[in-house]
């Protein structure tokens, strides 16, 4: 095509000049059609982890404490898989930004899970 596509050139120009200097990972990649095998395997992996937990619970394979520990381990694995495969962490602006991201994850997890445990620990006759 004779005329350059403005949509594309604007985005590229912005990525080259502006705040994102030197970030090849943030450049738009038009026409790149590599098949996303990582995501496919990640999806299958997340399904396996989910159904493993479900089967463990339904069939009462383990005593309660062991069961909870195994489910918790699977959940942490699931979270790591989601962050690693689907959240594009490795495309960020280097290690410093990845640490900010992971710190935020831990903060939210600690806030939501930790506070919920604290709240639900009450021993009154309500529940």
């Amino acid at each position, binding site marked *: 095509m004779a*005329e350059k*596509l*403005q*949509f594309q050139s604007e985005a590229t120009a912005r990525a080259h000049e502006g705040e994102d200097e030197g970030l090849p990972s943030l450049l738009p990649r038009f026409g790149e059609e590599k098949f996303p095998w990582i995501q496919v395997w990640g999806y299958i992996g997340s399904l396996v982890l989910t159904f493993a937990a479900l089967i463990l619970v339904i069939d009462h394979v383990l005593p309660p404490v062991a069961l909870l520990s195994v489910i918790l381990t699977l959940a942490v694995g699931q979270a790591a898989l989601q962050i690693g495969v689907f959240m594009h962490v490795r495309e960020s602006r280097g290690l410093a930004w990845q640490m900010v991201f992971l710190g935020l994850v831990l903060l939210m997890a600690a*806030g*939501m899970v930790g506070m*919920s445990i604290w709240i639900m620990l*009450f021993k*009154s006759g*309500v529940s």
Partner: protein
Amino acid sequence: MPSFVLYLIHTLFPHDVRRPTELGADFLIIMSGVIIVYYLTKQKKWRYLWDEWLTTVDHKKIGIMYLIAAIAMLFRGGVDALMLRTNLALPTTPVISASEYNEVFTTHGTIMIFFMAMPLIFALWNVAVPLMIGARDVAFPRLNAMSFWLFAFGALLLNISFVIGGSPNAGWTAYPPYTGVAFNPGPGENYFFLSLLIAGMGTTMTGINFLVTTLRMRAPGMTLMKMPMFVWTTLTTAALILFAFPPLTVALAMSLFDRLFGSSFFTLTHGGMPMMYVNLFWLFGHPEVYIVVLPAFGVFSEVVATYSRKALFGYSAMVLSVLAIMFLSYGTWVHHFFTMGAGPAVNAFFGLSTMLIAIPTGVKIFNWIFTMWGGRIQLTTAMLYQIAFIPTFVIGGATGILLATVPADYQLHNTYFLVAHFHNVLIGGVLFGLLSGTYYWWPKMFGHKLDERQGKWAFWLYFIGFWVTFGPQYLLGLEGMTRRMYTYPLGFGWHELNVISTVGAFIMGAGFVVMVYNVLYSLKYGERDLTGDPWDGRTLEWALPSPAPEYNFARIPVVTARDAWWDMKQKGQTLANSLSSHDISTLEMPKNTPVPFLLGLSFFVVGFGMTFEWWIIVAIGAIGVVASLLYSAFDYDEHKHINADVIRRTESALGRLQG
């Protein structure tokens, strides 16, 4: 008659959807359906409807569809409210029964929050945000259309419940064990969970979309601290949505599992924890409060600056306070269930964190007042909402502080004092804000103003009606009247106040009628906006013609100042006077696609099948979902080109091309 027909009639139309109210609604729905189909066929509009609206990915049209849906839902939720209020004005001769009352207050709350406030916010985002930041569309236009259709079909699923199968009746919070299948058989609660799950997916996607749009799609030169305040609130609200909706999705899905598959997450038996639902729900629910109010704050920040003809006072303090509200709103959710009895340490922590939020909110209130101070204020309808908002929201906030005081909350919890408080902030804050934004951006959406005289009538009816309705409810709460009761004994002295409150509700209903008349009248007779800048605005959307052309900006502007358009006007520039023919090149724009509509429809089929546990229908819908997604994933032909000549012709017809 074959037995499955009887089974269908028995399942789809049980006794409680054959009451006079429902039969009347059936009649109206069928009649209006017939009229719409007849009109579309007669005018040969089916093709137009499909090409221009149902398959569109244009953010401006999606915004208009959100707006229409939101106004329709405001009608439904408002009629529900009038039914509730009528019953409470006549305690000796209830108009609707206790069970119907439960259904009506459930749909009133659910519709007003999820299907009125949320879409009205998304309407304003879609209409204004891409234009304000100088973008051609949102970051993911097809995802945006998917969000809309998931919302629309989710809303449809909830709305058909009252004529097909039976309404949900456990309140908009849907606490167990009210929703447990042992106590609440029938499809009503399934409808509730499924419709919110479907619409919630759309909302999460909207959050992601606008987060990326505001961070990545701004015009060159528009740094974060040059963004209009409405865009800042969009950014923070989108972040809130991203983190707040997962707990809701989890809580709804687990409740649905309890009902459909016999799990025991929230049941009273088998070690279930009903209070965990409450915890998860409000882990979403409190950020949700700020999800709906922050966009209203954003609207007010634009409206107050435009109609005071001054830059917003204390911009950086406003940004900081919005960010503070965003973070703090995650740390307050227990104040919705202090009476669970989690203990003094937990309650004291969350009481204090709740009161902390009053500080950044107070900062914002002062900044709006200081923006007006010394300004040349124009009392337009949008500005009247702003001026009414300030005292109303301050009183609503102050009663919120009273409720955050734990010992007081033990007394006031679940009374009409609480009902009055949250309507005070939701109507005085959210509804006033969103209506203000609707009047403000209406010319940008439709190319004409709404009639100001009628708009002011509607405003005064809403404002006066609001106080007549909810003022007495504070007193009723202090006198001990609890929420969600369909009648009460006469001896408690509640009757007079309830009658006043009902009169107020009908005044607000009259306000709605005037507003709809205002819209219809202005379609035909409203003052046309030929300049694109009817209010002498400050931000970039007013640099464009009204309504904006499909590609928004023929050439993306370069931003040098905070109120970009105002700054350009001060320097004697417009987007038009520097645009010459050779600046225009062929643009790549997203192409219309039927996938979002079909995806929404497929999810609707899944939801409907699952509500009645008809697994074959669920499978059919699921195939539709997977097929839509696969088709969309492998559809590389998703762009079209708008030829430079077409753009030149359009711009020159608008008188915006030099030479």
